[in-house]
């Protein structure tokens, strides 16, 4: 099935749970937060929450940053603006 994962269209076997998706991707669930169709999926609901055809999934983690835009995308960020911003910051 096709899903949109961190902004990119992607073919994954499915439907599958959030837990299974993270395992397939080799991601440690304790280090990330997951959003499914713009709503946070709490860690204790990963196993029971299903990712289905056309789902929009965001998988995020903490990275270094202060009051600075580190130049990596956030959910819903606008690419053109971000590109210009990264140029200003560099």
């Amino acid at each position: 099935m096709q899903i949109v994962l961190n902004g990119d269209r992607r073919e994954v076997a499915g439907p599958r749970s959030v837990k299974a998706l993270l395992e397939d991707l080799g991601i440690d669930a304790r280090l990330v937060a997951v959003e499914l169709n713009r709503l946070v999926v709490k860690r204790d609901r990963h196993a029971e929450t299903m990712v289905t055809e056309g789902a929009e999934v965001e998988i995020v983690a903490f990275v270094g940053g202060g009051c600075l835009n580190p130049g990596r995308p956030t959910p819903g960020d606008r690419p053109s603006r971000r590109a210009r911003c990264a140029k200003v910051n560099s």
Partner: protein
Amino acid sequence: MTTDALVIAGRAFASRLIVGTGKYPSHAVMQAAHVAAGVEMVTVAVRRVDLAAKGEASLLSWIDRSKIFLLPNTAGCYTADDAVRTARLGREAGLSNWVKLEVIGDERTLFPDNEALIAATRELVKEGFVVLPYTNDDPVACRKLEDAGAAAVMPLGAPIGSGLGIQNPNNLSIIIEHSRVPVIVDAGVGTASDAAIAMELGADGVLMNTAIAGATDPAMMASAMKHSVQAGRLAFLAGRIGRRRYASASSPVDGLIAPKTA
């Protein structure tokens, strides 16, 4: 815990210096700077996991969470909606309901969009977050944020990463005078004296990233910042003398061997 703790939303911090985790040459350098700064709170950004880069060492493994409180931020967000979503993800990733809220309104200056910031503050407070909004050095905006339920206000000293120091000490003084929540000066610090000036004005704390991370020796600058924040705080509590235009002798005028004749 010292008697002069920084208290935000009922949580006490002995250190009044809050630092970022970005722009360091390496995680090891960042960790050394955090230790040298004696920080008890650091801010971290929330970003998409790089699905191509497997086994990348987690930032969190370089932060001693037994001593350092994590403050997720919404840096890079340009709308209230993005900031609220990012705050929710930060809460899920960090298991803390605190957020350093940023809603940027202009990409060249990275100045906040106060209208969206206030709306996002209101929403997140409703959802039970402890919200620390990054704002302009605008007393009216700070008052509105406080009214919206912010746990502290974080006016800028100068644009993010600019190192220009405290550009409008008068506005900061007014904000500090009227605020009923802690005032953390966030952004613009370039060197130790800038942090001391913010604290001498009566700020409750200072948040910085680039001034330390971008220094030639980040750990040494972190130590300088620790001392300057402490010095500025002490000077504020001690109560400085008034400014006057002419000299005022500090030695007795009586008993001079050559008294001034009239």
